[in-house]
């Protein structure tokens, strides 16, 4: 995309969200949409992260709490099942890990530079309830 200089930008701007004008937004899933370059879906905020959430499929119960409380639309959830995290849009705020109800949590925050596979192999065990 060509960026305009500050002195070339016209007052008032129209930023189209999609390439085609007759886009069925409600009926189409994100991956099927024809996003325009001016849609923030094409951008990334991955470099904001210090911690990243890692998703463990084996523990997840598909309650979708993380989906509804994610402020960045970064939880990929299709057909009532949680599929994973969209690391392009996740800012690493940690809300998803906080609202996860399973024991042990199926979403845990780790340092950005840790490997996902390594972390998944050392997932914490189920904690017993303290009496």
């Amino acid at each position, binding site marked *: *995309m060509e*960026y305009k200089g500050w002195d070339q*930008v016209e007052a008032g*701007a129209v*930023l189209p*969200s*999609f390439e085609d004008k007759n886009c069925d*937004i*409600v*009926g*189409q*899933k*994100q991956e099927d949409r024809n996003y325009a*370059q*001016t*849609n*923030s*879906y*094409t*951008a*990334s*905020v991955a470099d*904001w992260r210090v911690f990243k959430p890692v998703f463990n499929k084996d523990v997840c119960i*598909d*309650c*979708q*709490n993380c*989906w*509804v*409380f*994610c*402020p*960045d*639309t*970064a939880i990929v*959830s*299709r*057909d*009532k099942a949680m599929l994973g995290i*969209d690391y*392009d*849009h*996740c*800012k*690493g*705020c*940690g*809300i998803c*890990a*906080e*609202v996860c109800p399973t024991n042990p949590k199926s979403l845990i*925050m780790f340092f950005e530079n840790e490997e996902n596979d390594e972390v998944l192999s050392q997932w914490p065990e189920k904690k017993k309830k303290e009496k």
Partner: protein
Amino acid sequence: MSKIIKNLKQFSTSNDRFEGAHLLCPGCAHSIIVRELLNCTDDNLVIANATGCLEVCTAVYPHTSWDASWIHIGFENAATAATGAEAMYKTLKKKGRLKDPDKPVKFVAFGGDGATYDIGFQFLSGAVERGHDFTYVCLDNEVYANTGGQRSSSTPRGSSTTTTPAGRVSYGNKKYKKDIVAIMAAHGAPYVAQVAPNKWKDMVKKYQKALATEGPVFINAMSACTTEWKFPADQTIDVSDLGTDSLVFPLYEIENGSKLTITYRPKNIVPVRDYLGVQGRFKHLFKKENEHIITQMQKDVDKKWEMLQRREEAGV
């Protein structure tokens, strides 16, 4: 025609209309509130947005995060822009000049608490008085967060902000929070409600009711601000939970200016102290000389809750 949402699993099949990679702070509640409004309906939306955090961060040139018609307008006139578009839509419909006249279109205005309580108040009042068919959502984070945390008339008593700093002499903001819900109900708006992001089902229900209602609707949404309320980013939902459970933000709705219904009654009411304790902006209240502010706050909250319960009982 509104979408039927029975449970969270079903709600999660909605196709998102609010895109990620906007520049709101990590853990900001604004986007949770906005996202739910956009996802809870299948109708086309026309959105007017007052200046504020939400506007500055979701439309940073050259990107937009909105998959809906969206306009940025001045600090004060989000309500005016939405009602203007609504008036034009009605006229074009009457003249038969719309391409798709049967497709329902909803008009929504978003504003922060600065744009609603202070700067845009006259315009909002006028729009509601004229009786346009639109929904105004106030994202109430109790401070001018976008410009660095100055106090607004929504800032609660005792809160430390950049223009009312707490210190040796002062305990922070000395004014009380304006009761905007009561003011908007007094306008005779057909539907006025208060929502919080942690109670998603209550929020979705109220949104759907608001969009289905004909006439002006006002919704006040508690939006916990990690930056200005000073709590860790992952605590947004927990802080909102404390806000609704301590009844600092009671969830209720008022229909036709009089019929009040409480929509959420906490099982265990938490003391206001717990809600204040998790936030950095109230840190100074726990000093010995400021304890009376907390006691006073607890009394005010109890009084308000008593009033709401009695009003609900009496049905007036």
